[in-house]
């Protein structure tokens, strides 16, 4: 066999392998279970998230308590498809872009400010506290209810966020924990969020992520999910 034939055979077999390796890096799926505790009772929500890094497309398959599929892209196009009624809701707004989703920041290793600078927040101070980095982000003038946000980092990963209102009361606390390293990114598998509606009332939202996969997707079509052509548009 001459060199050309060897090269052709090599390319035929090797190039698809490269493509597969690349796809493995670009595709991430995560299962999410969220519980909300409010006024003494809880609500549970479950979904699987499919993120195509290359296209910046996120497909979320919600299956409990109701089934629907949410699709969004970097341009802020959002489609929500309800299989049971075969209807779709469409919205377009830059704030709905996948680049504003929490998972985007962690998977793309952009968790240094959690998107606050993009929203007009300015870093006004940082201190070291017991081995942790404490940063203060001043809210832009357009946000009238919040004065600043404190974000605490441990080993460059956010572990705590605190939203301080202009009235001097804490509006929200978020705890990021159970950080787990994957090959190309690190994400918190548990996020606890406490919103304070009043002095005596609060809501707790607990999100637990599991089943994080980066390259093994047997028979999964949600990465290429398409809304049926005959779906009715809900206005």
């Amino acid at each position, binding site marked *: 066999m001459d060199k050309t034939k060897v090269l052709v055979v090599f390319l035929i077999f090797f190039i698809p392998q490269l493509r597969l390796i690349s796809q493995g890096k670009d595709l991430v799926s995560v299962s999410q279970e969220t519980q909300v*505790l409010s006024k003494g009772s*809880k609500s549970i929500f479950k979904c699987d998230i499919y993120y195509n890094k290359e296209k910046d497309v996120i497909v979320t398959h919600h299956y409990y308590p109701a089934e629907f599929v949410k699709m969004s892209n970097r341009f802020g196009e959002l489609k929500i498809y309800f299989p049971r009624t075969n209807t779709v809701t469409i919205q377009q707004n830059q704030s709905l872009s996948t680049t504003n989703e929490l998972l985007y920041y962690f998977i793309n290793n952009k968790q240094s400010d959690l998107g606050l600078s993009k929203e007009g927040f300015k870093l006004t101070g940082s201190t070291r506290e017991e081995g942790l980095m404490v940063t203060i982000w001043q809210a832009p003038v357009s946000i009238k209810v919040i004065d600043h946000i404190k974000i605490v980092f441990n080993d460059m990963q956010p572990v705590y966020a605190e939203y301080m209102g202009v009235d001097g009361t804490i509006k929200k606390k978020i705890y990021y924990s159970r950080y787990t390293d994957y090959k190309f990114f690190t994400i918190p598998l548990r996020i606890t969020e406490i919103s304070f509606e009043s002095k005596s009332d609060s809501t707790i939202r607990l999100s637990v992520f599991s089943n994080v996969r980066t390259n093994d997707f047997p028979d999964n079509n949600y990465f290429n999910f398409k809304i049926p052509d005959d779906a009715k548009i809900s206005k």
Partner: protein
Amino acid sequence: MKKIIFLSLVFALTAMFCNNAKASGYTADDRLVDEMFAKAPEAVNPFLTDFTSSAISTTAMASGSKDAAVALILDFFLGGFGIHRFYLGTEVMTGIGYILTCGGIFGIVPIVDFIELIINYNDISRYVNNPKFFMWN
């Protein structure tokens, strides 16, 4: 000598406790949170039961072709962007207000919207085409 060692030990333990006490302000008590969720009953609301039933489009949930279950889902997952308000019908500025206040005053308004939608699940007509930022007002 023993006294010095004892005092050093006490100092070290105190310092360790203080460090943990300070650091604990930035970590949630997972056990306590899990206990609270374990003890709480799952909300029995139409959202959790009717959405999967076949009667969804024939009951009183729909108001002017707006479905309360859909509004609830949109509020829960996309409430910070005011998508449920767009779905129910509102002014463009209302949605922008949600975004400018970082998700409706940092997610508080969508939570109140969520509770209001659950309470008034059988008749959401007052929230349809409602131009106010606080739809319950």
